[in-house]
């Protein structure tokens, strides 16, 4: 969009925000399109990752069209951002379409898997209790359908989980690993966490 206001046919709306090409802009301007609540980070507690960029000149990736260099591959797969960490350092970071690196981008169902993993870690550490009510942590949900649900109800293996949510998180041959999903109450509360 290069003019203001954009022509109506070019405008991103709730009717087209997931449709290409509108999703290119919409997926990192979600809060301007979808009603949502911001969860700001703590600017005084930012964990900066060390950077150690690698030269990806020799990196070729096989794809249906043959072998492509990394940047061509990313463009081909409509990538807005790619970050790779190895041994705790950022070794590759790309924003092919100039999305600013600090801009939140929608994660769709990754949010459920990610928050499920974090919840699993917190349960393991004793910082979150599976038997506790969701409303013990988020009292503002007491007037919603989440009233009475426990934290455990929001994780897989329970009657409250939907198959689509379970499918969204796939733990590959996780002999000892666990892959919890779905604190839906949280996902309904954040811009980058709209559910599918």
């Amino acid at each position, binding site marked *: 969009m290069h003019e203001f206001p954009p022509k109506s046919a070019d405008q991103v709306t709730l009717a087209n925000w997931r449709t290409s090409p509108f999703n290119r802009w919409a997926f990192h301007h979600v809060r301007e399109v979808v009603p949502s609540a911001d969860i700001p980070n703590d600017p005084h507690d930012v964990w900066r990752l060390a950077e150690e960029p690698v030269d990806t000149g020799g990196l070729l990736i096989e794809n249906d069209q043959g072998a492509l260099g990394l940047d061509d591959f990313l463009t081909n797969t409509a990538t807005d951002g790619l*970050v790779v960490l190895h041994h705790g350092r950022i070794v590759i970071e790309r924003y092919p379409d100039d999305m600013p690196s600090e801009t939140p981008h929608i994660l769709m169902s990754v949010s459920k898997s990610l928050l499920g993993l974090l919840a699993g870690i917190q349960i393991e550490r004793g910082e979150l209790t599976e038997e506790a009510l969701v409303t013990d942590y988020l009292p503002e949900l007491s007037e919603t359908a989440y009233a009475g649900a426990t934290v455990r109800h929001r994780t897989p293996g329970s009657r409250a989980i939907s198959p689509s949510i379970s499918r969204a998180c796939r733990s590959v041959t996780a002999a000892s690993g666990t892959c919890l999903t779905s604190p839906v109450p949280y996902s309904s509360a954040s811009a980058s966490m709209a559910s599918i």
Partner: protein
Amino acid sequence: MLDKPGPVFFCLGIHGQYLIVHPADEFVLAKVSSRARALEANDEVVTLRMAARIREFLATGL
């Protein structure tokens, strides 16, 4: 990726959102996209192959 020992976490969101973690190799890949297709098996295979290729490149430089 899949030929390596240990669990791999593969988190998937429609329209090309991915978080892939291989703890044993301290490898993390996050990809966000605005793909036209919401969900198609081949897209996920291509992405897993990309992750495996990048992990191999980082390990060997080749």
